[in-house]
């Protein structure tokens, strides 16, 4: 086994080579941004479970795998392999293969006031727009994965909505990783800027072709201008050997309204960071998610909601369904800054455990420095209710379908919080198909056994 130190050296080698190859066509400010971030990564190294932010998630398997950057001259994908992941009703569909934007596979019509392109293309242009935002919000000091992402930032999506532009149909960003002989790492970096009063929906979707260990360490900076309304969807559908570390950093200006919806349906070890900062008065933020795990999946949801201005509200709702030996984590951190009076923050995590070996760690963490705030948090852990199952079965619905219906009902709480529209319909289709597979291989429980242990455990506190 290689030690962590050796792995850092491997990253250093890769980083040096990466910077060398991009010399000449990379702006100086970006090279500097990468270097600083890499230095931070080296300083910190990979987190361990002694780290409070990573208490429930052991990333040793990531730390000891020698990941390489994807080769530059890979054979191009033919469009037909993307068939299973097509989303016809997206207004714009950007496709990234192993982290690189592929123009030929993308659907990119020109829309007034909407500028969408790849980050790599943007780097070649005058820097103002990018330089203003890129790397400004992501917390590279606290999170080594964010530092690593910034160090290797090379491509991803750049979206800019001009003031007052409203687009109903979603913009979808599809990240496909391909099969490889050696473990590959990719670091997609997205910058989504929504000027004042604009309105948009963005879907980030991560999928894989083939299998084998790989690391997708993506990071998105999303800026919601004054009065902007933005829905963001993170959909994780990668294969079971994939490591996925996702960070969504939202910067909210005055009276902006954002919603982050996460659907974790795939991946082996997944860490989903959502970090909104309510930086202007009157901002509202919904952080909504569903994670469904079975087998050996590890799905960690780390929320860090920062109330930095008065009169803002945040709502966190995460629902988990865990079967087999799956391990789920909900870590909800709410930080209320000193001047953020009249903050209204709520956090709810509900879980269904379908097997004896499934596990959930749920942890609220409130840090309140203002004195006139309302913060509540609560969590429940339960099983499929035997009464409800029997009720459905007594009407002729077979056990498997009944279980699926009950899982769907539980998941529908999450769907119900999404604005009706194409993105929600997309999410609904994926959840429906996915829960069918879960209800298929989850065995019927003995009724008596469930009657004894079926009572929900729950707790709620008001602070």
């Amino acid at each position, binding site marked *: 086994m290689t030690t962590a130190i050796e792995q850092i050296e491997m990253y250093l080698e890769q980083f040096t080579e990466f910077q060398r190859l991009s010399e000449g066509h990379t702006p100086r400010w970006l090279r500097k941004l990468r270097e600083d971030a890499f230095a931070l990564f080296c300083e910190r190294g990979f987190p361990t479970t002694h780290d409070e932010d990573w208490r429930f998630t052991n990333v040793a398997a990531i730390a000891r795998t020698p990941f390489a950057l994807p080769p530059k001259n890979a054979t191009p994908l033919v469009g037909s392999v993307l068939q299973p992941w097509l989303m016809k009703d997206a207004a714009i569909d950007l496709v990234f293969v192993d982290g690189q934007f592929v123009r030929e596979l993308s659907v990119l019509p020109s829309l007034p006031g909407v500028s969408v392109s790849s980050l790599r293309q943007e780097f070649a242009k005058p820097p103002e727009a990018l330089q203003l935002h890129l790397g400004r919000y992501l917390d590279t000091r606290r999170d080594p994965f964010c530092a690593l992402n910034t160090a290797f930032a090379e491509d991803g999506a750049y979206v800019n909505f001009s003031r007052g532009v409203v687009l109903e149909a979603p913009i979808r960003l599809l990240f496909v990783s391909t099969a490889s002989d050696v473990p590959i790492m990719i670091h997609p970096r997205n910058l989504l800027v929504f000027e004042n009063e604009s309105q948009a929906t963005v879907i980030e979707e991560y999928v894989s072709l083939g299998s084998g260990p790989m690391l997708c360490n993506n990071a998105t900076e999303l800026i919601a201008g004054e009065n902007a309304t933005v829905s963001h969807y993170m959909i994780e559908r990668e294969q079971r050997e994939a490591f996925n570390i996702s960070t969504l950093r939202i910067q909210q200006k005055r009276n902006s309204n954002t919603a982050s919806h996460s659907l974790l349906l795939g991946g082996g070890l997944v860490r989903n960071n959502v970090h909104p900062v309510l930086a202007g008065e009157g901002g509202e933020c919904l952080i909504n998610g569903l994670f469904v795990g079975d087998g050996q999946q590890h799905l960690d949801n780390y929320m860090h909601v920062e109330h930095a201005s008065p009169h803002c509200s945040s709502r966190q709702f995460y629902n988990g369904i865990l079967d087999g030996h799956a391990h789920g984590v909900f870590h909800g951190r709410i930080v209320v800054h000193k001047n953020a009076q009249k903050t209204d923050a709520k956090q709810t995590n509900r879980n269904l455990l379908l097997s004896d070996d499934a596990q959930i760690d749920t942890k609220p963490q409130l840090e309140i420095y203002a004195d006139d705030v309302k913060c509540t948090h609560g969590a429940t852990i339960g099983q499929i209710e035997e009464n409800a199952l029997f009720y459905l079965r007594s*009407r002729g619905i077979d056990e498997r379908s009944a279980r699926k219906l009950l899982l769907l009902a539980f998941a529908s709480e999450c769907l119900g919080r999404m604005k009706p529209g194409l993105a929600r319909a997309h999410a609904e289709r994926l959840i429906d198909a996915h829960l069918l597979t879960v209800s298929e291989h989850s065995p019927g429980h003995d009724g008596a056994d469930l009657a004894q242990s079926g009572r929900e455990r729950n707790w709620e506190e008001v602070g």
Partner: protein
Amino acid sequence: MEVPEQNKRRKEDQVNLLEIKNLHVTVAGCEILKGIDLEVNAGEVHSIMGPNGSGKSTLAQVLARRETFQVTAGEIVFGGKDLLAMKAEEAACEGVFMAFQYPVEIPGIGNTYFLRSALNAIRKYRGQEEMDAMDFLPMFRERLRLLEMDEKLMNRSVNEGFSGGEKKRNEILQMAVLEPKLAILDETDSGLDIDALRIVAKGVNAMRSSDRAMLVVTHYQRLLNHIVPDFVHVLVDGRIVRSGGPELALELEEKGYGWIEGEARATASVPA
């Protein structure tokens, strides 16, 4: 035993739909039913009466194939098939329906969707074509009118936020849509005001037919004023201690269960 009484009322050509023989049931090691014998023909309405804790609901739930109850002896033949070998969903597809004493709230599943799924599961089992929303809706609306239910209620989740009366009416609505061969009403009258009771009874009576049997489980005689049974059986301590016609219900109403319980105890203490 009053079995001959039962036979007197029977017509020759009636089909034996349900036959319970020497049924013994335990729950968590405790014997609840201690040898039940009962025959129900198509077209008949039987009422099972008895004091609290006599095993009425257990009998209803065993017939609906709830697995928490353990059958230790006896058999149940339904429509010529072994009911005890069936799962709850199979029994339902074969034509058993139980209106729950405590209907379950299921947030997240729409009423109409649930009912159409149930109907289609049953139709599929019977080799019939599934019903699409266009065919389902007119039939559904007619049943809603019968139960005097607001269609808006059906857009809500199953029983969620329903009043007690609405829940019970919803049970009878489901029965009216699924058209079972054997309808079991488990204390459907408990907690109902007189108006709701009348509506429920109207729905049930509209469903009485020569090819359908009903088992009305109740503690009180009140419901039987509205749904007049052909036979009344009194269940005490896990046994049917007396069977008779509707007049038996009136007698119970008048005298209470005390006398019959006393009588049952006396019989039980006499060595065989």
